[in-house]
């Protein structure tokens, strides 16, 4: 199996889990013929990239996604759409530069959403 696909499968398990998982948990949930050490390596790689959070739990490490899938998607789009004006770094080149203030605001709101649960109500009053 390609490494990229394996990383995606591991991330999918972390995203769907309610709580941080151990390497053993991830390994069992994957339901594939994989070596334990392979899963450990992949989790280590993802942690090094900053995509996965590593927590010590007694003797073992537990792993959780650094941000929810939706947050990461929003961060990605904001990074892509936001490469305009003075922030421009030529990190990527958009086909059409287009970030309306409203679009950016929507994406930023999505980024503020906690990893698990409902969006934080803005200033105590829920938006209609």
């Amino acid at each position: 199996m390609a490494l990229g696909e394996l990383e995606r499968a591991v991330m999918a398990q972390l995203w769907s889990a309610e709580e941080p998982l151990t390497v053993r948990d991830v390994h069992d949930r994957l339901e594939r013929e994989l070596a334990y050490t392979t899963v450990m390596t992949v989790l280590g790689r993802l942690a090094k990239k900053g995509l996965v959070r590593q927590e010590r739990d007694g003797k073992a490490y537990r792993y959780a996604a650094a941000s929810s899938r939706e947050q990461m998607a929003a961060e990605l789009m904001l990074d892509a759409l936001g490469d305009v004006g003075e922030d421009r770094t030529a990190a990527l080149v958009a086909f059409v530069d287009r970030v309306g203030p409203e679009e950016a605001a929507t994406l930023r709101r999505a980024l503020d959403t906690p990893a698990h649960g409902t969006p934080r109500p803005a200033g105590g009053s829920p938006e209609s």
Partner: protein
Amino acid sequence: MASVWLTGLALVLAGPVPALLARARWTRSVPRAAIVLWQSVAVAAVLAAVGSALAAPEALLRVFLHPEERTGIALAIAVGAAAVLAGLIVVRLVVVLVLLAVRTRVRRARHRDMIDLLARAEEFDAGGTLRAGIVLRVLDGAVPFAYCVPGRVGREGRVVVTGAALETLCPRELRAVIAHEQAHLAARHDLVREGFTALHRAFPVVVRSREARDAVALLLEMLADDAGRRRVGDDAMAGALDAFASSGRAGYGSDVVERLDRIRACVHGGRALAVGTYLAAVALVVVPTVTIVIPWLTDALPTVGVR
């Protein structure tokens, strides 16, 4: 005299020339040559500024002191001042360039990691239009959007389109967009942009570096548009631009309008204009070097004891 000429040249290349070139309309018919001319203006401006910084103290020495006094401490101060002035320009540019390059690559690496995790699992069939070394990624997203992320040297670059873009574009338009992005990646347009972004960051005021950066960015888009037009056709390229610009609340930016106008007017560059532009670009760097710098060096170096 050399310092006066170099200072004048630096001022002209940093102010009026970029202002005029940014407003020029002819550049859009020869985008590649025009980009080379912009690069040449930038290089010549920096060289002239460094040259005038080097030459100015020596010129002041000549004005205020008799030939027999131009020795010892006075000479040492002049040489030191020249080195510091020129060094300030060069060091500033290099530091900004390195910092920007590092930040850009860190940001890209993170962006690529996230794309690879979030992209739709099923492979999208681009109809065999992708070159080797380029990967197409489809992201779920309600905003029609397409962009490219250069890979590390020797590694795969990513062309990214959103699901909304796939729904908005017809197959030919999609191929035109992909051809456009591939042109950016294959010709490393990001490096050109990075250079002008660094120039603007290093010298943001007084000089017309913002105009230069924005004009070059637009010319690079036009150059990539031409790749899409050649590969798929004018109508598909214009249709794709139209579809993207009209779908967003941001609407048509002036850049998009210019690109659309250009495609619809079937602007194609004349060979003579392109050759003339390339020659001007070469002359801009070579002529000042031969006519000002070399005579000045042969004149000034013996003063400092270099023979």
